[in-house]
């Protein structure tokens, strides 16, 4: 009974996944496709959980579905309303009807090829997988959660560059300027929700950060939760979404990579090799890096959501038109 139900659930998930993706791409109006896309994100989080990848599931739910959905909805909100109901015509500059058919056929052929290769590859599971190496080197890494160990110790350079990617996107957005119109309607329910939800979000973010060392969790998930707190603040009428303003904000933006770089240069100049933490202090150093990384990710994601640096205006009181 156990194996059968597993495969039944898998098929269900797979069908839901593919249907939602198709619906999101072909939905009539833009608003519908975005909402379907958010649902698709949540189902993906479920799939990650099913495939025993809890860290990724958390991140997908918080960032993939949550924040991307928030970004998409705000992008929608600036549009004049009839625009958002734009009917997705499938006509395409790639030579109209025949272009579509040609592209669809060629893409599906390539997909079949890859599928066959995946089938061929999956069966002879490569013994030399890195999992074994990670397992053996885990106790040297200072944390017991293998994913955090890989992220912040073995492949720390990747994470450093990834934070740089996040910063690059943020700098690009800020350089475009033209911030969004501040949230117009402020009603009592949103403010009361804010009062209740934001402290809880901050608490869970802290818990995520701490638990990351030995259980699924970590800097990215915690950062995303903090960003969610910021988004809720903004929706409840706080124009600056709980962010400091001016120099402090810029330092916070940069703190994540800053700590990483100082750590790396300190170990590099100490002759051990870039980002080679001393084995005794590895756990503590990773936690320190994760702390600042969480703050930096949260600030960056909130600013991406806001679209520009918040002005220095006083907080608008609850319930009044800003």
């Amino acid at each position, binding site marked *: 009974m156990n194996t059968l139900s597993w495969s039944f659930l898998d098929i269900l998930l797979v069908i839901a996944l593919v249907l939602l993706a198709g619906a999101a791409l072909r939905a009539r109006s833009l608003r519908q496709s975005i909402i379907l896309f958010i649902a698709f994100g949540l189902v993906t989080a479920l799939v990650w959980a099913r495939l025993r990848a809890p860290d990724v599931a958390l991140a997908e739910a918080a960032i993939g579905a949550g924040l991307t959905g928030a970004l998409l909805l705000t992008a929608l909100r600036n549009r004049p309303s009839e625009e958002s109901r734009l009917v997705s015509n499938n006509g395409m500059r790639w030579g109209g009807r025949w272009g579509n058919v040609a592209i669809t056929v060629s893409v599906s052929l390539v997909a079949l090829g890859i599928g066959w290769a995946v089938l061929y590859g999956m069966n002879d599971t490569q013994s030399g997988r890195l999992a074994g190496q990670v397992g053996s080197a885990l106790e040297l890494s200072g944390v017991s959660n293998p994913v955090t160990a890989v992220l912040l110790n073995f492949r720390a350079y990747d994470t450093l560059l990834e934070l740089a990617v996040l910063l690059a996107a943020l*700098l690009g957005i800020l350089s475009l300027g033209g911030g969004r119109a501040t949230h117009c309607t402020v009603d009592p329910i949103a403010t009361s929700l804010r009062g209740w939800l934001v402290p809880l979000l901050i608490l869970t973010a802290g818990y995520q950060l701490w638990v990351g060392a030995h259980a699924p969790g970590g800097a990215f998930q915690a950062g995303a939760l903090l960003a969610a707190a910021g988004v809720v603040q903004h929706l409840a009428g706080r124009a600056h979404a709980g962010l400091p303003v001016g120099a402090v904000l810029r330092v916070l933006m940069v703190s994540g990579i800053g700590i990483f770089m100082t750590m790396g240069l300190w170990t590099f100049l100490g002759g051990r090799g870039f980002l080679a933490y001393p084995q005794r202090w590895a756990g503590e150093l990773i936690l320190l890096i994760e702390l600042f990384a969480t703050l930096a990710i949260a600030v960056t994601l909130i600013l991406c959501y806001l679209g520009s640096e918040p002005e220095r205006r006083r907080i608008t009181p609850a319930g009044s038109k800003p």
Partner: protein
Amino acid sequence: MEVDVLVLSVALPLCGALIAVAWPRRCEVVGMLTAFAVSVAAVLTLVQVLVVGALQHEMGGWTPGLGIALRVDILSAVFLVLVGLVVLASSVYATGYFGQPREKAHFWPMWLLLLAALNALVLSSDLFNVYVTLELLGLTAVSLAALSGQRAAIDAALRYLLVGLLGSMVYLAGVALLYLGYGTLDLPAIATQIESEPIAWLALCLMTGGLLLKTALFPLHFWLPPAHANAPAPVSAVLSALVVKAGFYLVMRLWIDLFPALLTPSTGLLLGIPGAAAVLWGSWQAFKAERLKLLAAYSTVAQLGYLFLGLALLFQLAPGPTRDVLFGGIVLMALTHGFAKAGLFLAAGMVQKRSGNDQISNLGGMAQRMPVTTFTIALAGVALIGLPPSGAFLGKWQLLSSALGLGQWLWVIVVATGSMLAAAYVFRVLERAFAGSSQPDAPVAIAREEWPALLLSAIAAVLLGVGSGWLWPLLGNDI
């Protein structure tokens, strides 16, 4: 000196970018210092490689399979120096180009991140790490391209972003397949295990497809001209000279180091034919282009065609002295194009800034008003056509020699027509510069903007041609 200088090439620009973000008032000084320090580090790395040979630095002290290793051999050291010098010259130019502090505050941090991405990409030898550097490169390039804020620039930047993302995703699919098949991400480790099986073939096609999309090889080049033509001058210089070339560097790295087992001579044609088409189509479009920057952008498409054509020839030669010489020729052509195109774009920027727009039709009398700029365009033109004193001449000589050696006349005809078309579109511009303008006003010169462009073109047109003798034997032992 046992300190691995190559790590500094990545660490310095990142730190510079952080300081520039945190301290916007001083971002220009920080930017200039970092650019200078990075080019010094690049030259030191080259010296270290010349003395010691290929170097490797395990990040975090872990063995390359588990952790990531930065590896530098003569090919990547030479590209590092190209990146360092072109970015340094463009930075000096940028100090004169950007006026208001707001623009500066936005420009410099992204500029240094772009530099970090370029260095990281050239040095990395871990497949997923290359993906992350490609993304960082793509995002910074898009943000910089959209810096000018006009409608055309933003449209071009958006299309560039979408194409870039598509390319990186396809590349990532290839990496996933390789990991599925061989269980590790380290490039040399996979190179030893790889043999001709379907999963390796598919990974090769996907990764090369993704990279060709980002390198704008002929059929996939539609996004390049508007993006490069509408970006601010120093940005378009770096976009054309370096960012597009990083894609080519990766294709070269993959096809020579990772997939030699799979490559039969005929697979080279997969790159050669689009390369030849790129040469002809790019040169023709450049000849028809109305604006100087658009001309330069299309000529980038054409010049990349030459490089891929060279690669196609390279794989048909059996390993031996002729193949090493051709490999040296291709690298030299890539370097010369890098310097020449950067010089040309900076000069085009000066023309646009001085006379309002860069329409080729009203460049009349440019020779009097901006003699140094005209000279820069002339030198860059010489390097683009591949006339004697330039490194491109040697490159084209090797290309033609190996094509004739193989008896494949198609490439010879393509290179010949390409050079004639290149001569046509360069002298079409220079001709206007000689035409006397009605009011010969006094020559206007801003040293800070003119000298970097002139030096870049001079390096391309003369130094690389005459002074590159030492490079050839070293490149030989790379492949």
